[in-house]
C-alpha cells in the first residue's frame, strides 16, 4: 500500500517537474528561438547646425550632452570608421587645393576684380553649403556680366579639385544655365562641398557626430531623437507655470515617470521622489511636484513620436526649476 502511494507521488512529482520544464521552455527561453534583432546598418548622416533644427534655446543640458558625447568619441569613431578615412582624404585634398590655388591664382589672375577676390577668398575659407550657393549665384551674375575665361577657371578651381587643370570645355564660352547645371548637379562637386564643410566645421562636426550617435542609438530604441525631444520639451515649457516662491537655493528637481497611450495621453503619473513630499523642510517639493503634474495634465496629449510606441510608452520627465529661478 505504502509503496503504491510512494510510486504515485513520485509520478506526480515527475509530472510536475516535466510541466515546469515545459512551461519554462515556453515562457523563459523564447529569446533562444528568436532571431537576433534586426539592427539597421549604421548610416553616417551629416547634420546641419542644431540651431536650424531646433527651437529650444541653448541650455546647460546641451553642454552636458556634448560633453558626454565627447567622452564617447572613441566609440563613435569605431562605429563609423569610413568617416575618419574620408576626413583624412579630404584634408589632403583641401590642402592641395589651397596649395594649387595659391600657386595658380597669381598666374591665371594677375589683376582680378576685388569683388571676385573677396568671393574667392571666402570660398577658400568657408564652405558652408548655403554660402556656397550664394557665392555661386554671385559668380554666375558676374559671369553673366563678364563671361571671361579667367573667371570660369577661377570658379572651376575653387569648386572642383579635379578641374584644376584648364579644361578644354572651360575655354569654351558657356551659358549661365549650363554653368548652373554643372555646378549644382555635378556629383563630384557636391562631394567636394560636403567634404570641405566637414573639415571647416570640424569642431561643429565633432559635436554633431555625437548627436548623430545618439540619434543612431535612438533607432535602437533607447532615446528620442533631438527633434522629437525638442518638440516634447517645447510643449511642456509652455505648460509649466513655475511657482515663483520656491527657495532658489534648494534642490528643485522633481522626476516624474509617465505611462502613456500611443496618442500621448496619460495612463499614469508617478513622482519618483515621493518620499520628499512629506519630509520636514521640504514643503516646497510638494508645490514643485504638483506644478509639474499640472503641466503634464495641461499638456496632454503629449507630442510624442508617431512611431516606436514601445520606446516611449514609459517616459521620465525631470523638471528642474533651478535654471529659471536663478539658483
Amino acid at each position: 500500500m505504502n509503496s503504491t502511494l510512494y510510486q504515485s507521488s513520485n509520478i506526480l512529482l515527475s509530472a510536475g517537474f516535466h510541466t515546469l520544464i515545459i512551461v519554462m521552455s515556453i515562457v523563459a527561453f523564447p529569446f533562444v528561438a528568436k532571431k537576433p534583432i534586426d539592427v539597421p546598418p549604421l548610416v553616417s548622416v551629416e547634420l546641419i547646425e542644431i540651431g536650424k533644427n531646433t527651437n529650444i534655446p541653448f541650455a546647460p543640458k546641451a553642454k552636458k550632452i556634448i560633453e558626454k558625447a565627447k567622452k564617447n568619441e572613441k566609440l563613435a569613431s569605431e562605429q563609423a570608421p569610413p568617416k575618419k578615412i574620408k576626413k583624412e582624404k579630404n584634408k589632403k585634398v583641401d590642402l592641395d587645393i589651397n596649395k594649387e590655388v595659391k600657386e595658380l591664382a597669381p598666374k591665371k589672375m594677375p589683376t582680378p576684380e576685388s569683388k571676385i577676390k573677396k568671393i574667392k577668398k571666402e570660398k577658400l575659407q568657408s564652405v558652408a553649403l548655403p554660402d556656397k550657393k550664394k557665392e555661386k549665384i554671385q559668380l554666375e551674375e558676374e559671369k553673366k556680366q563678364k563671361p571671361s575665361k579667367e573667371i570660369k577657371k577661377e570658379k572651376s578651381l575653387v569648386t572642383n579639385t579635379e578641374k584644376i587643370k584648364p579644361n578644354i570645355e572651360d575655354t569654351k564660352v558657356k551659358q549661365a544655365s549650363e554653368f548652373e547645371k554643372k555646378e549644382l548637379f555635378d556629383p563630384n562637386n557636391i562631394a567636394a562641398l560636403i567634404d570641405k564643410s566637414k573639415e571647416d566645421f570640424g569642431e561643429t562636426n565633432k559635436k554633431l557626430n555625437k548627436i548623430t550617435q545618439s540619434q543612431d542609438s535612438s533607432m535602437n530604441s533607447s532615446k528620442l531623437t533631438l527633434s522629437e525631444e525638442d518638440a516634447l520639451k517645447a510643449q511642456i515649457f509652455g505648460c509649466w507655470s513655475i511657482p515663483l516662491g520656491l527657495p532658489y537655493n534648494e534642490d528643485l528637481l522633481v522626476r516624474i515617470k509617465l505611462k502613456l497611450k500611443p496618442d500621448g495621453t496619460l495612463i499614469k503619473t508617478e513622482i519618483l521622489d515621493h518620499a520628499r513630499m512629506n519630509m520636514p523642510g521640504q514643503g516646497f517639493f510638494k508645490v514643485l511636484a504638483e506644478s509639474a503634474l499640472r503641466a503634464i495634465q495641461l499638456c496632454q496629449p503629449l507630442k510624442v513620436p508617431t512611431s516606436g510606441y514601445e520606446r516611449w510608452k514609459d517616459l521620465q520627465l525631470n523638471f528642474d526649476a533651478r535654471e529659471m529661478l536663478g539658483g
Partner: protein
Amino acid sequence: MKTIKFLIIIFIFFLLSTSKSFSLIEVDITRGNLNPLPIAVSPLSQTNKSKKISQNKLNLEDLGLEIAKVVENNLKQSGLFNPLNKDAFLQKPDIAHLKPRFEDWSLIKAQALITGKVLIENDKLKVEFRLWDVLAAREMLALAFTTVPSNWRRVGHIITDKVYERLTGEKGYFDTRIIYVSEEGPKTQRVKKLAIMDQDGFNTKYLTLGNELVLTPRFNPTNQMVTYLSYFRNLPRVYLLDIETGIQEVVGDFPGMTFAPRFSPNGKKIIMSFAKDGNSDIYTMDIENRLVERITNHPSIDTSPSYSPDGKYITFNSDRSGYQQIYIMKNDGSNVKRISFGNGIYGTPVWSPRGDLIAFTKLHKGKFYIGVMRTDGKGERLLTENFYQEAPSWAPNGRVIIFYRETKTNKEGEGFSAKLWSIDLTGYNERLVETETDASDPSWSSLLSN
C-alpha cells in the same frame, strides 16, 4: 521541498531575466513660464437667512462675494496669480463647494479653484473654504474659521495666505498691517500722523493727532508693538506703542539727534543711531532695563542699523570710506565689513526676514533706486528707479518690499505727493499701495495670525 523552492526561484529568475526591457527615456524640463497662475475664486456660498443677518450686521449684501473679492484682490496684487473673471464661471458657488465639475473649470482655463461657505450664527462668523487642483481633479486644502463678523476682511486675508502658501511653497503676507507716516498739507507745513492699515489699504486708523512730528515707525517682529521717533519740544524721543491697547511709552530721551530706531529680531532690544558731539554712532537699548550699549565707535557717521533675522549680525550705512556705503558687522560691533562697492551712495539697508538679501536705497546720478543685494554684497539688483524714493521695508515672507516715493513739485510749488509703493523681488510687479492721505516711512508687520 527544498528542491521545489530552488526550482521555483530559478523559474522566477528566468522569467525576470528574459522579460524584455527598454531603458527609460528621460527628458529634462529646465524651462517653464512665469505667467501668473490662472485661478478661479468662486464666491463663498451663503444661505438666504445668513445673508439677511450679514446685511443687518455688516451692511453687506453678499458677504461671501465680498470675502471672495478680498481674496481675489490679494492674489492679483501678489502678481503670481491671475484671478479669472467671475462672469465666466459655469457652476454655482454652493454646488461647486460640494463637488466641483472640474471639466467646467478647466474649460475656462482655471488651474486652481477656491470655493467656500459662509454662515453667521449666534454672532459668530463661520467660514470654510476649499482649494482644488482643477487639472488633477482633487482637493488640495480645506480649512474652516470661526471669528466675530467684523473680522470678515481678515478671514479673506487668512484664506489668501493659506492658498498662497499651498500653491507657491512660501508663507503668505496678506494677514498683515502696515504702519506709516500719514502726511497732509503743503510741503512746507506737513502735518504728520502715525497711521496703520491692513496691507491692502483698508481699515486705516490714525494713532497720533499730528501735533508732533513723527518719524520712522517700525514694527516689533514678534508682536504688534511699534517703536517710532517723535519730537517733543524740539527734542527727539523714542516711543513704544502697543497697537492693540493703544498704550504708549517713552523709551528714553537722548541728548542729541536720534535716528531710525528698530527692534532686534527677538523684540527685546531697540537698535538706533544717535549723534553725540557731532559724531553719529550705533547704540542698542534693552527695553526691559533701559541699558544703553554703544556698538560702533568711529569718527564717521554710522546710521540706519538693521539686525539679521538671527540677530547675530547688523547691517548699517556709514561714510567711513568717504561715501555713504553699506556695511555689516557682528552684533557686538566687531568684524566691520563693507559690502557695497557700486557707484553712487547707498543707504537705509534692511535685512530680509529670510536672511538672504539686504534691501537698500541707492542714489546715483540724481536718481533714487530701491535694490537688493546678497549679504556678502554680491548680486546687486536694482528693482526700481525714480526721482525720489526710499525707506524699503520687507513683507514678512521676504518676497515683497514696500517703500515710499515722492513726486516733483512744479514751479509753483504744487504737485508734490508722497505715496507708498510695493515691488516684488522680480522687479516686475510694482504697485501703488492705496492710502487715504499722502504717506511715507512704511513698515510692514509680521503675520497677525501666526
